[in-house]
C-alpha cells in the first residue's frame, strides 16, 4: 500500500536581501503567495507559499494540480518531494518518492552520456548495479549510438532531452511527482516516447502532476485539485475542476 498524506501543511519562504522598495513591489503584486512578516522579527519578509494544505493520496490516485502561475503548484510538488520541509504541518509517506523535476540531476557536460546516466541514476536512489542493468535499454531507447560514450558537451539539445527521458522513464517510480510532462524532443521521437511514458506512469502507484495543459491532465489524471494563492480550493473530478478553473479565470478578468 502506497500513501502520501499532507496534514495541514504551511510553507513560508523567507526573502533575504529584500530592500524596502522591493518589499513594496512584492506587496502590490497581484498573484503569488501572501506576503507577510515574520512574527518574531518584523523586519523580515516572508511569502506564504502554501496555506493549510491537506491531502490524502493512496494507491491508484492520479492527481492533477491546476491553477495559474504562482498558485503554489510547484512548491506543493517540492514539499511532497521533501525538498522543502513545511513550516508547520506534516507530510507522511509510505513508498518511494520519485521527483522528476529534472531528468538528469547532477549532469555535467564534460562527462560522457554513460557517466552522466550512472550518476543521475544513483542520485535517483538506484545502486550502480541497478543502473548498469538498465543501461542497454536506455542506450537503445535514446538512440544515441556512438555518442553514448562521448562527452555530453558534444550532444545536440534533442540528444540530451532523449537521454534524460530514457533514463527517467527507466526508473521504478513508486510515488511519481512531475512538474509539466517530461520533454521528449522531435515529433518522431515524441511518438515512441508517448507509449513509454504511458507505461512509466502506469507503473507508478501514485502520480501528482502539475500542468497548465488541460489535455495532459485529462489524459493522465483521475482527479484534480484547484489551487489559488497557495491554497487548495477544491479537490474533485477533472472535468469539474477545470470548469471551476475557467470560471475562476473569467471572474478575475
Amino acid at each position, binding site marked *: *500500500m502506497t*500513501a502520501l*498524506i499532507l*496534514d495541514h501543511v504551511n510553507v513560508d*519562504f*523567507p526573502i*533575504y536581501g529584500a530592500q524596502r522598495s522591493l518589499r513594496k513591489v512584492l506587496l502590490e503584486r497581484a498573484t503569488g503567495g501572501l506576503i507577510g512578516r515574520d512574527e518574531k522579527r518584523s523586519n523580515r519578509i516572508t511569502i506564504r507559499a502554501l496555506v493549510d494544505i*491537506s491531502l*490524502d*493520496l*493512496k494507491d491508484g490516485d492520479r492527481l492533477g494540480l491546476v491553477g495559474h502561475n504562482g498558485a503554489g503548484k510547484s512548491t506543493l510538488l*517540492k514539499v*511532497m*518531494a*521533501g*525538498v*522543502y*520541509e513545511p513550516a508547520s504541518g*506534516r*507530510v*507522511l*509517506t*509510505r513508498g518511494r*518518492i520519485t*521527483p522528476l*523535476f*529534472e531528468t538528469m*540531476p*547532477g549532469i*555535467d557536460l*564534460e*562527462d560522457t552520456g554513460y*557517466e552522466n546516466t*550512472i*550518476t543521475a541514476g*544513483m*542520485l*535517483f536512489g538506484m*545502486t*550502480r548495479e541497478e543502473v548498469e542493468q538498465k543501461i542497454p535499454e536506455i542506450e537503445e531507447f535514446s538512440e544515441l549510438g556512438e555518442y553514448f560514450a562521448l562527452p555530453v558537451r558534444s550532444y545536440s539539445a534533442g540528444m540530451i532531452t532523449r537521454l534524460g527521458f530514457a533514463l527517467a522513464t527507466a526508473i521504478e517510480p513508486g510515488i511519481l511527482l512531475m512538474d509539466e510532462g517530461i520533454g521528449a524532443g522531435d515529433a518522431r521521437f515524441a511518438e515512441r516516447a508517448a507509449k513509454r511514458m504511458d507505461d512509466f506512469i502506469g507503473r507508478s502507484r501514485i502520480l501528482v502532476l502539475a500542468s497548465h495543459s488541460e489535455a495532459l491532465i485529462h489524459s493522465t489524471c483521475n482527479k484534480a485539485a484547484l489551487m489559488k494563492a497557495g491554497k487548495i480550493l477544491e479537490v474533485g473530478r477533472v472535468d469539474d475542476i477545470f470548469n471551476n478553473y475557467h470560471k475562476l479565470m473569467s471572474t478575475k478578468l
Partner: protein
Amino acid sequence: MNTAEQFNSELEPLAITARQDCLAGLRRWDVFARLGWFEVKRRYRRTIIGPLWGTLNLAVFILALGSVGGGLLGKNMSEYLPFLATGMIMWVFISTIISESCSLFVASQNLFRQMQFSYSTLAYALVWRNFIVFLHNIAVYFILIILLAPHLLTPWTLLAIPGIMLIILNGVWISLLLGMICLRFRDLQQLVATFIQIGMFITPVFWPPESLNGIRRMIFVDLNPLYSLMEVVRSPLLGVPATESLYIAAVIVTVVGWTITFLFFGQFRKRIAYWA
C-alpha cells in the same frame, strides 16, 4: 484523515533528522565517492598528467620556499625540506577543505532543490575529493624523504594514519557547518578566504614552533586548532609521535566541533533548501 488512521503504523514522516541525514549519506558511500572522484577527474580533463599538476605545483613551491627559508632560518636542507614539505602538504589538505566548505551548498543547489537530499553526502564528497588530492600530494613527501632523509621513516610514521582519520573526521563537520553558515550569510566566504590566507603564516607551517615563546607561542601554537590537526600527521611523518597534548587538543577540536555542528545541523537542516 481516514488513510492516515488506517495505515498509521506504516506511515513514515517524510522529513528526516540530522542523524538520519548523516547516516543516509554514509550508507550511500558509492554516491559520495562518485561525486567526489568525478570532481577531481573533471578538473583535469584534457590535461596529460591530471591532478599531478597540483602536486607538481606544490613541489616547486616547497623547493623554492625551502631554499629561501632554509637560508633565513639557518637550517640545512635535508632537515628543513621534509619539515616544510610535510607542513605544506597538511596545510593544503586542511585549508582547501575549509575554503571549499564555503561553497558546499551554494554551488550544489541544483542537486538538493530537485529531490530530498541527504546534505551530508555533499560534505562527505568534499572531504573525499580532498583526500584523493592529498594522496597525490603525499608523493612529494615520499620522494623527498627517500632522497634526503630516509632515517625519518620509522615505525612511528604509521601513526600518521590515525592522524589523517582525525583530519577527515574534522573535515566533515567543518564542511557542514561552514557550508550552512556561508549559504545563509554570503559575506562569510570572503572572510574565510582572508582567514585562510593569514592562517598559513601564523600557523607553524614553514617556521618551527620552537622559535616562538611566551604568550605568542600560546596563541599561535598551543591554542591553534589548525596546528594540532596538522601536527598529529606531520610529527609521525617526520619519524616522531605527536605529543600527548597535541592529541588531546585534536580530540577536543573534533568533539567540540562535531557537537556544535550536530546541534546546528539538527536545528537548521530543514532551512537549507530555503536559504539556497
